[in-house]
């Protein structure tokens, strides 16, 4: 009974396809591996030779759930190289479309993927039988996010309106005004979601993460800011590769991101929240206080509350941006191509997303590098598994398997994104 191997052959309710393998020897967890068996798609390779203006349309295809993040990190990296600054209404519109992505992506995870774990269902389809109104609320919330993306981007998945320098076409004030009514309802639904999620039973799990997120001076992070950590990192986004590395570790064939000379770290909602609590809107801070969530949350299971708070914030912020919106004269600023290297980070729903491009004088991509949040979080996921499972060893294999799956889902891992950088698993028996 002391030697056990727990396998989850197909992880359900995650984006993309992965598996899990935990080995227990003499009553102690020896290894915990999140296996990725998504086939590689080689984005960084085929980006070489493409025109810079094609990049946001191509990188969007890395992930159907967070395409806006891949568009945003790519355009900011290229604008950093070209010396372009996008301010005023165009900057606000970028923030606004990002709000839409956080709302749809988080609502998908909260209602369809994560909540069934806390309520004891296999999935949202079963949950719908007993709680149809709750599922309906989640779907309408998700829809509000998708409508925001569709209005600004043309469609929910792989929007077509984002370009280096701005947009192809900007919305009229009156187009946004009609959306504001729906967003007010969405904000109410998001607040209900915060209360609902905060009422779940959470296992005790207090982890001493090093949180890493963007942290701009006076706003909750979407598109920009310095990279900061809860243990003292404070660097410009362009210096990401000097401070973070991807390495092979002995127990896994996957590339894992680590702090150079340090260890695992955590990106995503818990990190953003801990490093930027005071930059949330007053309403969002108040909601956190109401449900008894302090300014830092170390329990990965409670990420569902933090995601709900971020949805609430994103609705609130979207309403503020719409209220203040004035139509710009032009949909994009002038772009002058310059040869060199440009880097940027933005905050994808799942966390920090780093892009670097080397471009020649005619705008052709010479080299590209993309580090998605899930590959950054993979070492933390495995550490969580090792630490927490030690407390669950008395459980049957079946229950333990469910617990492990839930642990992984706490991160909302997006395996489709991460796979471009992760090794295919080789089973070593």
């Amino acid at each position, binding site marked *: 009974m002391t030697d056990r191997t727990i396998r989850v052959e*197909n*992880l*359900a*309710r995650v*984006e*993309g*396809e992965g598996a899990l393998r935990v080995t227990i020897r003499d009553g102690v967890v020896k290894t915990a591996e999140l296996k990725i068996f*998504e*086939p*590689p*798609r*080689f*984005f*960084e*390779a*085929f980006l*070489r030779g*493409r*025109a810079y203006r*094609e990049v946001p*349309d*191509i990188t969007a*295809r890395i*992930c*159907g759930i967070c*395409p806006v993040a891949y568009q945003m990190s790519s355009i900011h990296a290229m604008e950093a190289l070209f010396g372009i600054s996008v301010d005023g209404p165009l900057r606000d519109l970028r923030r606004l479309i990002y709000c839409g992505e956080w709302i*749809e992506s988080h609502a*998908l995870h909260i209602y*369809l*993927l994560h909540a*069934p774990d806390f309520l004891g269902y*296999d*999935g*949202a*389809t*079963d949950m719908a039988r007993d709680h*149809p109104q709750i599922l*309906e609320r989640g*779907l309408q919330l*998700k*829809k509000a996010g*998708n409508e925001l993306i569709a209005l600004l981007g*043309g*469609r929910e*998945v*792989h929007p*077509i*309106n984002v370009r280096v320098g701005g947009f*192809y*076409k900007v919305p009229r004030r009156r187009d946004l005004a009609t959306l504001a009514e729906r967003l007010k309802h969405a904000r109410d639904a998001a607040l209900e979601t915060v209360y609902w999620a905060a009422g779940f039973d959470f296992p005790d799990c207090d982890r001493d993460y090093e949180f890493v997120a963007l942290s701009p001076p006076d706003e909750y992070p979407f598109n920009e800011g310095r990279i900061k950590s809860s243990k003292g990192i404070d660097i410009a986004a362009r210096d990401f590769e000097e401070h973070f590395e991807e390495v*092979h570790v002995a127990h896994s*064939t996957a*590339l894992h991101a680590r702090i150079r000379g340090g260890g695992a770290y955590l990106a995503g909602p818990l990190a953003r929240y801990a490093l930027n609590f005071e930059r949330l809107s007053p309403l969002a801070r108040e909601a956190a206080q109401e449900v008894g969530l302090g300014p830092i949350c170390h329990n990965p299971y409670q990420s569902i509350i933090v995601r709900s708070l971020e949805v609430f914030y994103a609705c609130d912020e979207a309403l503020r941006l719409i209220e203040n919106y004035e139509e710009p004269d032009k*949909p994009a600023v002038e772009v002058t191509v310059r040869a060199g290297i440009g880097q940027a980070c933005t905050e994808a729903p799942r966390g920090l997303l780093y892009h670097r491009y080397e471009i020649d004088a005619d705008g052709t991509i010479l080299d590209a590098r993309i580090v998605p949040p899930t590959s950054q979080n993979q070492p933390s996921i495995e550490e969580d598994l090792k630490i927490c499972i030690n407390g669950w060893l008395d459980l049957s294999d079946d229950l333990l398997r469910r617990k492990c*799956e839930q642990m992984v889902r706490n991160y909302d891992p997006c395996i*489709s994104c991460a796979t*471009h*950088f992760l*090794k*295919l698993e080789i089973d070593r028996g």
Partner: protein
Amino acid sequence: MPVKLRKPTLAVWKFASCDGCQLSLLDCEDELVGLIGAVDIAYFLEASSALQPGPYDLSLVEGSITTAHDVTRIKEVRRRSRQLVTIGACATAGGIQALRNFKDVREFISIVYARPDYIETLATSTPISAHVAVDFELHGCPINKAQLLEVVSAFLIGRNPIVPAHSVCIECKLKGNVCVMVAHGTPCLGPVTHAGCGALCPSYDRGCYGCFGPMESPNMTALSHELSELGVGERDIVRLYRTFNAAAEPFSTESAKHDR
């Protein structure tokens, strides 16, 4: 005594892809609860851990075939599916990852991965139809979710789906858009691209980039000629045809003519 009708079973499968097309099913926010009531979702990993072994009345397949393992897996999916519908550019044409088909995949592996010896992948990315019989192909990168509902409904009822195969140009005309190519000189793949998006890009003042793939019998030569007239160089013509449906005929053949 009335016979209780069995609900049809639906399965959703993923191969090499971004998840966006299967997400389109969950993006049917207003229809999802109705769909759950009408069908038995028997296998949908992204949505539920309750998995039934099949056989399935209808399988929706997302993604392209890029590994030896997936060549075997798609045959198993076909065996267990009464009807099989492929959704999206990856499943119908090989997707953006089919850009490897024009290069040496070993070079691609060494660019992305530090240890190429760990990577098991095929030299090409191919559509599902290159491996098994497919009952219907729904195009788009991503697919249009209204068309997805139409296809699912049609298959469950047992009629042909109504999905027009004409060009994006027709959609532009129906929408009353000004032609971006004629009026603004913007290169546009609308004349050769399969309808389905609702002429999205021209409606946002940009040229169509062909994410729904080639229409039925497109006149590629005529479009390439027009593009050259607008001053689009040979390299950019190749780039235009080689994106999300690069391996689809006749985009593939036409791009090769300009790849010198």
